């Protein structure tokens, strides 16, 4: 292990004494996360073909996508062991997104669609002989 690696392990990698090789432990955690992501992917694919209401399928698909995104954020992006500021930034970003979505819904969800006559486009004859 050279100086750079020592620095890396000193800078926030919590090596627990008395446990198995930390590299193997990390590798196992990443592989498990990947297996979980693939399992969830094929679960959402299977659910999409079930004979249930489209709305229920859409909500299930989104919920599974949310779980997958959380696994990527916590395990792959190390949000679980990140500094509190990093977690605050991530939480504020998600909260701001939801607030903006909610504000836009105030307009779209309260609109009353009014039927308007549609005039199909057509070519009119140019004035001839004038």
């Amino acid at each position, binding site marked *: *292990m*050279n100086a*750079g*690696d020592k*620095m*890396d*392990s*000193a*800078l*926030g990698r919590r090596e627990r004494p008395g446990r198995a090789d*930390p*590299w193997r432990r*990390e*590798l196992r955690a*990443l*592989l498990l*996360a*990947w297996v979980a*992501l*693939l399992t969830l*992917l094929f679960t*959402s*694919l299977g*659910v*999409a*073909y*079930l*004979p249930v209401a*489209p709305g229920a*399928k*859409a909500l299930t*698909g*989104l919920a*599974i*996508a949310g779980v*997958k*995104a959380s696994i*990527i*954020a916590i395990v*792959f*992006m*190390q949000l679980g062991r*990140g*500094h509190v*500021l*990093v977690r605050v*930034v*991530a939480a*504020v*970003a*998600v909260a*701001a*997104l939801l607030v*903006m*979505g909610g504000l*836009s*819904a105030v307009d*779209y*969800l309260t609109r009353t*669609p009014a039927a308007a006559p549609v005039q199909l486009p057509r070519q009119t004859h140019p004035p001839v002989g004038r």
Partner: protein
Amino acid sequence: MSITAPVADTSRAAPHLDAVLRRRVARLGMWLFLASELLFFGGLLFAYAHGRLQWPEGFVAAGRRTDVLLGTVNTVVLLTSSLLVAVAVEAAAHGRRRWVPWLLWGTVALGLAFLALKGVEYHKDFAEGLFPGPHFRLTEAGAEVFFMLYFTATGLHAVHMLAGIAAVALFAWHTRHRQSDWLRSSRMETAALYWHFVDVVWVVLYPLLYLVGRHP
């Protein structure tokens, strides 16, 4: 006192503390950038939600026309590429420096495979008259809006993929020497965070674009 004198020379007083701060600042900076990116893609997601509520039949009819096989294969490709980047960061942090360039080149290869499959899909979509415009083939109300959002979202995602591939390829090239400073996992971590975010965007797009309107 000279105006060029540093205000607080922490690097000389405590180099270790300086490294900790630099690492934290780099990570926090990338997360702030990703937060702005989340709001950028978020607008598209809400446009989709409103479109879907406005024209449910049109969105279902249009969603049925996307290629679920290619979309699923691409999701597997992208999730696997994220695994490789994450392993590369851990390998660098735990002294497995020999692995790093291989893992990063593997990520680049998977990223390029993703874009190639996306190209095949776009070609198919164009051939079937699914690109919004005068030659759009579907007649259901809202179907064209679906495909407008489909091409905008996947196109913007592909642009982000290109940037990610360039960044990871740069790291893969520089880490071929075992003593390279680019091997410091703290530096590689920022590129990895970006790659994972691009993966997260695709994970959310997948059910919205490929799993709509499927039935047994």
